[in-house]
C-alpha cells in the first residue's frame, strides 16, 4: 500500500513558512492537502526541494469539474521516501485561474495544456498555453459537465 | 569458340545488311550497332524482371516469408503485371515543379545506364564497343548519374526530395573515389583499361585473390554508388519518405527503378569481370559456356548485394562520409601502394 505522509506536520510547516495557505483535505485517500492558488508555485518548489518531502516526480495533473468548483489535482511522488501526496487547488467556477507550475516540473507543461484544452482552466504564466488535443478553432471545453454531447 | 559464335552472328548480320539489302558499309555498321543497343536494352529489361522478382523473393526469404507467389510460377510474372499496372497510372507532376527537368530526370538516369553498358562485355567478344579505355569510360559515364538524381531531387518542389538529392550528390561523389582507386590495383596488374584484356589476364588466377582488399572496398563503394542498403541514404524512407523520387509516379517512377537495377547489374558485371575472372570458367569446367559463367557470377554478386541490404540497418550520413573519406580512401590508396610494390618486386624476381 501507499506510504502515508504525515499531513499535519506538513501542513503546519507549510503554513509556518508561507502563511495560512494549506489545510488538510479530508477524503477517502487520506493523503490530500488543499492549498490556496496564489501560493501554489512556492509550495510546490518547497515540496520538491525540501529533502524531508523530496517530491521529485509529478505523477499526475488532473482537473475535475465539481458542481461547486473546479479542482486541479496534483499527484506527487517521492522516489526516495516512496510516499505520495495529493495537492488540491479549488478554483472559482466562473473564472478558473491557477498559476502554472511548469517552472517546477516541466512535465506539467503538456498536462496543463491538456487541462486547459479539455477543461478550460487557465494556467497563468504558462509559456505556451494553447489547445493541444483539439483544433484551435474548437468552441468549448469537452470535459466540463455542461458540455453538450452530440451523438 | 564462343567468340566465333557471336562474331559469326554479327558478321552474318552485317553481310546480310550489305549484300542482301544493299546497305553501304557505314549504314550497315550503324544498323548493327542499333540492333546491339536494342539487345542491351532488352538485356537490362530482362534482368530487371528477374531482379525485381529476386529482390522480393530474397527479402522474403531472409524474413521468413514466401514472397510473391500468385502470378506465374513462384510469382515470377508479378513484375510484368506490375509494369502494366504502372503504365496505367496517372503521371502526376507536382504544382510549381520545374516541369521540364522533372520530366527528363528519370530518362537521363536511364540514358547514362545504357551508355555505361556500351563497354561492358557479356562474354568473349560479346560487346558493343571494345574500347581500349573501356573501364575509364564506364567510370566516367557512371559518375554523371549523380546529375540526374540531383535533377530529380531539385525539380520536384518537395523538401524531402531536395534533401534526398543533396544527400545523393554528397554520397556519390565521395564514394566514386574509393571505387575508382579500388579498380586501379587491377588495372595496374593488367596494364590495360580494356575489359577483355582484364579477363584474359585472369586465365590462371582471379584477381580477387591478390586484390581481396580492393574487392571489399569496391563492394562497399558500389553499394553506396547504387544507393542500396545499408547506404541508401538518398531514399532514406524513414525520414525522407522516398528521397529524390518521392514525387514520381507511374511510368516515370518505373524508369527510376529500371535505371537503378540496370546500374546494379552493371556494377555487378564489372565486379565479376575485374575480380571474379569474367567468363573464365573455374576448376576447368569449360563445358559450361563462358556467358553462363559470367551470368552466374553477376547473380552471385547481386545475391551479395541483396544479402547485405536485407541484413543491415542504414548508416548515418556523417558516419557514411567519415567511412568513405577516412577509411575507404586510405585503404584503397594503401592497396595501390602495396600493389605497385608487389608488381615492382615481381618484375625484379622474374627479371
Amino acid at each position, binding site marked *: 500500500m*501507499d506510504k502515508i505522509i504525515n499531513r499535519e506536520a506538513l501542513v503546519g510547516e507549510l503554513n509556518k513558512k508561507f502563511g495560512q495557505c494549506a489545510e488538510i483535505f479530508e*477524503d*477517502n*485517500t487520506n493523503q490530500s492537502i488543499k492549498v490556496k492558488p496564489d501560493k501554489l508555485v512556492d509550495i510546490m518548489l518547497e515540496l520538491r526541494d525540501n529533502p524531508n518531502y523530496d517530491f*521529485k*516526480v*509529478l*505523477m*499526475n495533473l*488532473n482537473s*475535475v*469539474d465539481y458542481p461547486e468548483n473546479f479542482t486541479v*489535482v496534483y*499527484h506527487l511522488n517521492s*522516489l526516495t521516501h*516512496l510516499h505520495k501526496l*495529493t495537492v488540491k487547488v479549488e478554483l472559482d467556477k466562473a473564472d478558473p485561474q491557477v498559476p502554472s507550475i511548469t517552472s517546477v*516540473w*516541466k*512535465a*506539467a*507543461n*503538456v*498536462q496543463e495544456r*491538456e487541462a486547459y484544452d*479539455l477543461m478550460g482552466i487557465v494556467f497563468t504564466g504558462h509559456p505556451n498555453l494553447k*489547445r*493541444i*488535443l*483539439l483544433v484551435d478553432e474548437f468552441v468549448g471545453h*469537452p*470535459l466540463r459537465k455542461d*458540455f453538450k*454531447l452530440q451523438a | 569458340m564462343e567468340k566465333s559464335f557471336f562474331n559469326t552472328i554479327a558478321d552474318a548480320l552485317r553481310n546480310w545488311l550489305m549484300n542482301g539489302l544493299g546497305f553501304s558499309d557505314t549504314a550497315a555498321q550503324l544498323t548493327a550497332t542499333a540492333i546491339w543497343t536494342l539487345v542491351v536494352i532488352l538485356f537490362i529489361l530482362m534482368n530487371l524482371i528477374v531482379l525485381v522478382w529476386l529482390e522480393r523473393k530474397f*527479402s522474403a526469404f*531472409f*524474413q*521468413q*516469408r514466401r514472397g510473391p507467389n500468385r502470378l506465374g510460377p513462384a510469382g515470377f510474372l508479378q513484375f510484368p503485371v506490375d509494369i502494366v499496372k504502372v503504365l496505367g497510372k496517372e503521371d502526376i507532376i507536382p504544382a510549381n515543379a520545374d516541369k521540364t527537368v522533372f520530366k527528363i530526370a528519370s530518362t537521363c538516369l536511364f540514358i547514362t545506364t545504357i551508355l555505361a553498358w556500351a563497354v561492358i562485355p557479356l562474354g568473349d567478344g560479346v560487346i558493343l564497343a571494345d574500347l581500349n579505355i573501356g573501364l575509364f569510360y564506364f567510370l566516367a559515364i557512371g559518375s554523371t548519374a549523380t546529375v540526374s538524381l540531383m535533377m530529380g531531387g531539385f525539380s520536384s518542389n518537395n*523538401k*524531402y526530395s531536395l*534533401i534526398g538529392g543533396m544527400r545523393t550528390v554528397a554520397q556519390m561523389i565521395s564514394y566514386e573515389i574509393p571505387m575508382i582507386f579500388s579498380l586501379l590495383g587491377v588495372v595496374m596488374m593488367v596494364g590495360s583499361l580494356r575489359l577483355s584484356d582484364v579477363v584474359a589476364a585472369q586465365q590462371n588466377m582471379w584477381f580477387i585473390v591478390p586484390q581481396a582488399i580492393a574487392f571489399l572496398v569496391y563492394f562497399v563503394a558500389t553499394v553506396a554508388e547504387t544507393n542500396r*542498403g*545499408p547506404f*541508401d*541514404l538518398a531514399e532514406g*524512407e*524513414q*525520414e525522407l*519518405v522516398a528521397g529524390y523520387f518521392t514525387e514520381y509516379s507511374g511510368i516515370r517512377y518505373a524508369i527510376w527503378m529500371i535505371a537503378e537495377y540496370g546500374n546494379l547489374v552493371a556494377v555487378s558485371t564489372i565486379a565479376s569481370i575485374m575480380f571474379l575472372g569474367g567468363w573464365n570458367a573455374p576448376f576447368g569446367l569449360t563445358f559450361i559456356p563462358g556467358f553462363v559463367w559470367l551470368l552466374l557470377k553477376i547473380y552471385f554478386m547481386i545475391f551479395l548485394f541483396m544479402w547485405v541490404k*536485407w*541484413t*543491415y*540497418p*542504414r*548508416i*548515418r*550520413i*556523417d*558516419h557514411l562520409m567519415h567511412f568513405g573519406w577516412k577509411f575507404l580512401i586510405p585503404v584503397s590508396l594503401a592497396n595501390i601502394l602495396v600493389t605497385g610494390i608487389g608488381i615492382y618486386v615481381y618484375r625484379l624476381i622474374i627479371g
Partner: protein
Amino acid sequence: MLKTQELTLNLGPHHPSTHGVFRCVLNLEGEYIQKAVNHLGYLHRGIEKLAESRTYTQFIPYNGRLDYVAGMLNEWTYVHAVEKLMGITEEIPERAQYIRVILGELQRLASHAIYIASMALDVAGATAWFYGFRDRDEILDLLEMVSGQRLMPNYMRIGGVAADLPEGFIEKCQALIDEFPNRIAEQEGILIGNEIFQARVKNVGPISKEMALDYGLTGPNLRASGVDTDLRRDEPYGIYDRFDFKVPVGEKGDTFDRVLVRIEEMKESVKIVKKALRDIPEGPVMAKVPKVIKPPVGEVYSRIENAKGHLGFHIVSDGSTKPYRLRIYSPCFVNIGIFPEMAKGIHLMDAVVALASLDIVLGEIDR
C-alpha cells in the same frame, strides 16, 4: 545575392516513422534540427469523456483502444484502479492474480518486441522488424486463445478475469516462453550487436537523470536514464512481491540504453512468466463482486508499470454506476513532451531514431 534560410519541414502526420498520426514541425539548418514543435491530437477520441457515460464495467473495452499494443496491461491498470476504489484488492482470487501476471508480462513482451522491431525499422533494418513482429504475433496468438481478440482483449474484469485459461494454454505458453530467449538472442545478434546499429543509436538523444525526472518520464525511458525505479518492485501491486526479478538500469540515458533496458526487461519478463506458470494454483478466477459496480464516493489514483511507463487512472466516483471523472495519465503523452528538447541540434536521421526510442503509441497520446 546568396542567402541561406531555415528549412521548415513538416514531419507527419502521415509520415512513415512517426508511429501513427503524430506531427512535428522541424526547423532545419542543413539537416540539423534547430527547433521542433509537437502537434498532437489527430487521434483524439475523447475517451475520458466517453468514460463518464459508461458504467465501470462497460469502460473496460476502451482501455484496449488506448495503448493498442499493450491492451491487457491497460485493462489491468483500469480494473486495478476500480478495485482499489472499491477496496477489494485483497479479495482477488489467487488464480486470477497469476493469470493477470502471466498475461500482463506476455503483453509486455509483445510491446517490447514491437519496440525493438520498430526501432529496427526506423534505422531501416527491415529484417529485424519482421523477426520482432513474428515474435509478437506468437504472443498475440496466445492472447487470442485466452480472450478471443488479439489487440483489444477485454479480458480483465473488476474482481478477476473474464474466464479461466483455456485448455492447452499453459503448455503452449510454456513452449513459447522456453523458445523466447532464443528469439531475444536473435534480435541481439541481428540488431543490437550490429556495429552499424550501435553507431546509429549510441549517444543519440541523451537524457540526463535530472532532465528525465523534470520532464516526468516514466518506465523504461526513466530507467535508461539511470533512475532505479520499478513499480512492480517498489510498490508491488497484485502478487508481484512474490516474484524475484532484476530491474535493469541504464547509465547514459541515450537511445542505445533505452533499447538495452527493454531487451533486459524482456529477459526478466520471461523469468516472471516461467515462475508464474509453475506456481499457478487452481481455483476460481472471479471474486464475489456485485453485478452492478457501485464504488463508494471518493477518488483514487492508481498506477501500474505499463510497458511504456506508469499508466495511471485517477477516478472520481460520486457513488453512481458511472465514473464522475476519469483521468488517464498516459505515459506516452508525457514522454513525448521531451522530444522537442531531445531533438534540438541533432541530425534529422537521429531525430527519427530518438522519437522511436521514446516508444510512443498515438492511441495513448491522443486518447
